[in-house]
């Protein structure tokens, strides 16, 4: 008897194992069949297949779906097999979409991408979201909750309920509750449920919430519509308050760009009095140095990409500074005291430099990438701050302080100020005025060069880069007060903020005109700008 039982158990176990294995096999086969069908389907058929995969509720489909959304799901032309192509250094390797087995290296040219469009990407992110709500990785769960919130997919409600019950992370649970509320609002659940959902969404209080409630208000009626409309009004009120802060932020950010562009000019034009129309081209040279540094890094040391800007900074300073010294020695020193000729000579020089860059690098834009720490945005209350802009503000202020220290606290700064204030006296004190001139011009140009490194992050790196900043730079320096660094700082930030407050009301074109008119009127009243230098040196 004991023997019989054991035998029966063994038989049963074997049978179960066989059934189980065949079940898994059949299941993997249908999954594979569906994935293979994607290869030949058109957009509508693909959507149907994705929805089938979603209905099967099978988490194993997630890698294939994610790859499809990213454009990595490919058909191998040689055998028509569907694979996931993953970048592996400079080549690609194939991965099986179901078993995740490594299928070895593959030639990109031998692959046909399975195409998706925006609609399919939306469907995929919704499906992947509902399939990964129970993932072990908290960041995946968070992304899943956000995806479901966006898709407002009512069919995900059951999974959401389970996921919320099991969730241990409070932040993620909040997102899931929000996603659940969004999904409930798409259903015909009883009014109290939907009103509670509106309250959850309204509490969230950002633009996405407003978007969702607006669509509810448009389609619902009765109490739900009333509550949604009231919540929208509240959200709009708080958004309007935040938008003042947002405008100030945009203004400071624009101001920091203006400051960077103008600060080199504050030295060459402000301190030395040279009307330097080639200033913008120094900025351009800095940007091209950044491009070349990144180009070298891309080909020989990709790991250093994140510090490429830091490497570019000293190089840009030295390159632009050296060009500046050459310009001063070669052209400008012959033209001191003849502003009109200086203007014409530097203007011509700017055209020469532009065309030289155009001949060497070509007329088209060059790609300068953003390091990872400068990409993306974060939310601070109701403000959206982008990392790139935050760093540019920090950088502009740092450059400003550094320059102030150089001018006020170093021997070179002292000589520089001495020469500009009274050349003959400085000369009789043993200062080599000609070299101070050259180095001052070099310093201004070098600072313009490092501004170019920062500007390469937000603007085109093209031969025209400098031209677009030259007028703004002169505007800032003249408005702030020639010869005064603080004036340049205050001038740049004021113009930035004023511009950004005008823009929403007047539009970008009229806003810019109004700022120009404002400056003209201001200069009429105070010809020396905001912070005018006083004393004999100025009068002469």
């Amino acid at each position, binding site marked *: 008897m004991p023997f019989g039982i054991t035998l029966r158990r063994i038989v049963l176990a074997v049978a179960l194992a066989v059934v189980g294995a065949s079940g898994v096999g059949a299941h993997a086969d249908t999954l594979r069949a569906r994935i293979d069908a994607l290869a030949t389907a058109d957009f509508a058929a693909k959507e149907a297949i994705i929805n089938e995969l979603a209905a099967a509720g099978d988490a194993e489909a997630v890698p294939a779906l994610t790859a499809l959304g990213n454009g990595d799901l490919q058909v191998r032309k040689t055998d028509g097999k569907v694979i996931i192509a993953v970048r592996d250094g400079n080549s690609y390797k194939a991965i099986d979409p179901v078993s995740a087995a490594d299928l070895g290296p593959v030639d990109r040219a031998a692959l046909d991408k399975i195409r998706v469009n*925006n609609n399919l*990407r939306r469907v995929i992110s919704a499906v992947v979201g509902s399939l990964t709500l129970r993932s072990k990785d908290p960041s995946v769960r968070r992304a899943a909750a956000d995806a479901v919130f966006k898709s407002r997919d009512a069919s995900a409600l059951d999974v959401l309920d389970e996921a919320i019950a099991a969730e241990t992370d409070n932040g993620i649970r909040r997102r899931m509750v929000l996603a659940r509320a969004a999904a409930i609002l798409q259903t015909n659940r009883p009014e109290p449920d939907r009103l509670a959902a509106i309250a959850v969404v309204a509490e969230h209080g950002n633009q996405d919430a407003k978007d969702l*409630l607006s669509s509810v208000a448009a389609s619902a009626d009765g109490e739900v519509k009333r509550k949604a409309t009231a919540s929208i009004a509240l959200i709009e009120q708080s958004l309007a308050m935040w938008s003042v802060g947002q405008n100030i932020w945009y203004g400071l950010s624009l101001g920091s760009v203006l400051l960077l562009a103008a600060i080199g000019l504050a030295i060459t034009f402000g301190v030395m009095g040279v009307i330097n129309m080639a200033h913008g081209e120094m900025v351009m040279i800095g940007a091209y140095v950044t491009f070349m540094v990144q180009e070298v890094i891309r080909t020989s040391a990709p790991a250093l990409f994140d510090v490429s800007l830091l490497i570019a900074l000293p190089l840009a300073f030295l390159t632009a500074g050296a060009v500046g010294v050459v310009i001063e020695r070669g052209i400008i020193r012959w033209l001191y005291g003849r502003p009109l000729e200086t203007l014409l000579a530097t203007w011509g020089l700017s055209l020469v430099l532009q065309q030289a860059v*155009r001949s*060497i690098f070509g*007329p088209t*834009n060059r790609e300068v990438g953003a390091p990872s720490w400068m990409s993306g945005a974060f939310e601070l209350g109701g403000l959206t701050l982008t990392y790139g802009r935050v760093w540019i503000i920090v950088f502009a202020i740092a450059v400003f302080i550094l320059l102030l220290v150089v001018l006020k606290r170093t021997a070179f700064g002292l000589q520089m100020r001495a020469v500009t204030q009274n050349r003959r006296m400085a000369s009789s004190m043993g200062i080599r005025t000609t070299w101070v001139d050259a180095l001052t011009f070099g310093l201004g140009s070098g600072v313009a060069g490092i501004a170019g490194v920062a500007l390469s992050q937000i603007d085109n790196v093209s031969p025209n880069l400098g031209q677009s900043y030259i007028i703004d730079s002169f505007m800032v320096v003249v408005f702030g007060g020639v010869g005064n660094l603080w004036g340049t700082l205050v001038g740049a930030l004021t113009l930035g903020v004023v511009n950004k407050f005008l823009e929403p009301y007047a539009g970008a074109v009229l806003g810019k005109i109004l700022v120009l008119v404002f400056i003209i009127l201001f200069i009429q009243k105070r010809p020396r700008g905001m912070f005018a230098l006083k004393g004999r040196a100025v009068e002469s």
Partner: protein
Amino acid sequence: MKAHFRTNLVAAAALVAGTLFGAQAASAADDTIKVGILHSLSGTMAISETTLKDVMLMLIEQQNAKGGLLGKKLEAVVVDPASNWPLFAEKARELIAGQKVSAVFGCWTSVSRKSVLPVFEELNSVLFYLVQYEGEESQRNVFYTGAAPNQQAIPAVDYLRDVEGVKRWVLAGTDYVYPRTTNKVLETYLKDSGVPAEDIMINYTPFGHSDWQTIVAEIKKFGSAGKKTAVVSTINGDANVPFYKELANQGIKAQDIPVVAFSVGEEELAGIDTGPLVGHLAAWNYFMSVPAPENAEFIKSWQAFTKNAKRVSNDPMEAHYIGFNMWVKAVEKAGTVAPDAVIDALIGVAVPNLTGGYSAMMPNHHITKPVLIGEIQDNGQFDVVWKTSGLVPGDAWSDFLPDSKDLIADWRKPMSCGNFNVATGKCGGKGS
């Protein structure tokens, strides 16, 4: 890097050679046919136009390799109008009267075209204008092989409305004639199709606008009204890079608010990391990724000509390819390069385009083209997601503007009129 340098040396050498030859050939005479190339090689527009000069040089070289035209060699005469609009007219005059060229290929901006029009009319020569433009023009001496608004803007809006389900529209453009006219056409078109005025936002920015924070935030705000929103962008070349960078930074994805652009092609994308932009759209009549044998061959010879295996091709290049081949065919048909004969012979000429079909010159001096909608991919290319089922004939006068809806252009005899008013039955109306 090195490759670019070499390319440019070659281009520079070609330019010098072109100018020298041009200067010599004025006396050298009748064994060559001269072709004028009127593209800016310096100044702001050099970014777009220099490439097109190279395309023309390549096409001429290829034609010469095939034995030239009417038994004579073709000879390129390159001039540089330096992005300076009045200079365009001067240079055009120099090409036609001084160099005696048989046809001129060139101009990018509408204002440069308007500036040379009187010259071509006065000296009776042939201009091929090869960029997409705002329409509202048909001139006897000009042949337009770029897209008119009905070959680009309107199909794009149809696609967004029908496929993406867009109900709310942002029309964003640079403040000059092409975006303003195109947006006027689109606004009327949208309103006619039942979009209420509060669901259309129109925004203009100055040339080279680089601080997009406020506008992108406004677009985001406009898009949070519970209706699917899209941006239709007629933003001009240079301002696009900062615009797309700002979109990416503020996290606006194509799945949420797609942007469809009419001035962004493969060349413009070469300056941006397109990873965050996947799914944003462009409407053109050609994409480099189109799998047609003619296209593969064109790309191969273009990359060989520029000695750069990564060089991209774009829509205006295809327009040059079509325009040049049409001119060649018309000259062969007429048996002469005399302008009047060529102008008459051009109508009805059909040549292969690069998307696997034929384009034909119509009596209104515009051509038939397919319209393609492409989505930006992370490698800087576009994937075609939609295509018109047939060819779309270019409409010189928009049906959606009150001033021009009664106008048609037909340069065949006996009408021979660029702005025939079907309501009054008379030739002449708004425009030239």
